[in-house]
């Protein structure tokens, strides 16, 4: 299975789940942010919990990544100013549009025309950032991070 196909597959599942759970609806997000409805917080909390348990198990097993040649690593990052300013800017946009990048993409897929405006905005926002600062900050590009981690020899010696 190629990495691209896996990305597409996981994306499909994520997109359907976001639609199904109602998280792509601005009404649902807004009701949650106004504390009218606890659904989002409960759902979010349980998702984080499931992910945390999964990650903890994986870390314990010291598994290697299935698709790329790297030990599975989790490096907690220290909070810097950019995390707070970025999150504040993000929160401002999120509070106005009541949709974040995942749901925006889902809305476009569902054929919701308003979603296209927000989608275009996100593309412009990302473009402005990349233009301003060439090196990426998104840890999703973990290839260099993983390399750095191995160089430092952070992970404990594998027992397998």
């Amino acid at each position, binding site marked *: 299975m190629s990495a691209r196909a896996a990305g597409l597959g996981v*994306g499909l599942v994520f997109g359907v789940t976001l639609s199904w759970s109602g998280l792509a*609806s601005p009404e649902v997000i807004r009701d949650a942010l*106004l504390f009218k409805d606890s659904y989002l917080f409960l759902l979010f909390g349980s998702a984080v919990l499931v992910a945390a348990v999964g990650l903890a198990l994986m870390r314990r097993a010291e598994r290697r990544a299935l*698709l790329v040649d790297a030990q599975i690593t989790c490096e907690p990052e220290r909070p810097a100013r950019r995390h*707070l300013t970025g999150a504040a800017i993000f929160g401002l946009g*999120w509070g106005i549009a009541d949709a974040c990048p995942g749901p925006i993409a889902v809305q476009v897929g*569902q054929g919701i025309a308003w979603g296209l405006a927000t989608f275009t905005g996100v593309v412009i926002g*990302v473009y402005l950032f*990349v233009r301003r600062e060439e090196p990426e900050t998104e840890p999703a590009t973990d290839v260099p991070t993983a390399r750095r981690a191995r160089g430092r020899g952070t992970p404990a010696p594998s027992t397998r």
Partner: protein
Amino acid sequence: MRALFNARLGVTGGFSEVVGRVRAGQVGFDWRGWFLVGVILGGTVYALAAGGPLFHGYGWLTDTFHGDAQILIAPILLGAGVLIGFGAKLAGGCTSGNGLSGTAMLSPAALAATATFFGTAIVVSFLIEAVI
């Protein structure tokens, strides 16, 4: 995602990849771009299966602006999108990257970012509620 790629899953990463490639004039992108394509298609699959989109109108925006004034919604959403895209990149992730994947890792940066964006969005929502 960790298991597959040793990478943090996030939708902003997908946007980033696609924007980067298009900017470099390249065709095709890596798994993060395909992940974004998958999320979009996931919405399509759902709409087809459910017989239509999830909702009609657009929350408080279509409730507030009627008729000709609805033309204002597009620039508002566009502007919000710019803030979302730029902010997410600066913070190193959005709701899925920092909020889900990051907090699940108990990454202090992601926890701080998640608390901040939830807080800001809540304040903004209450402000909008107070104004409209």
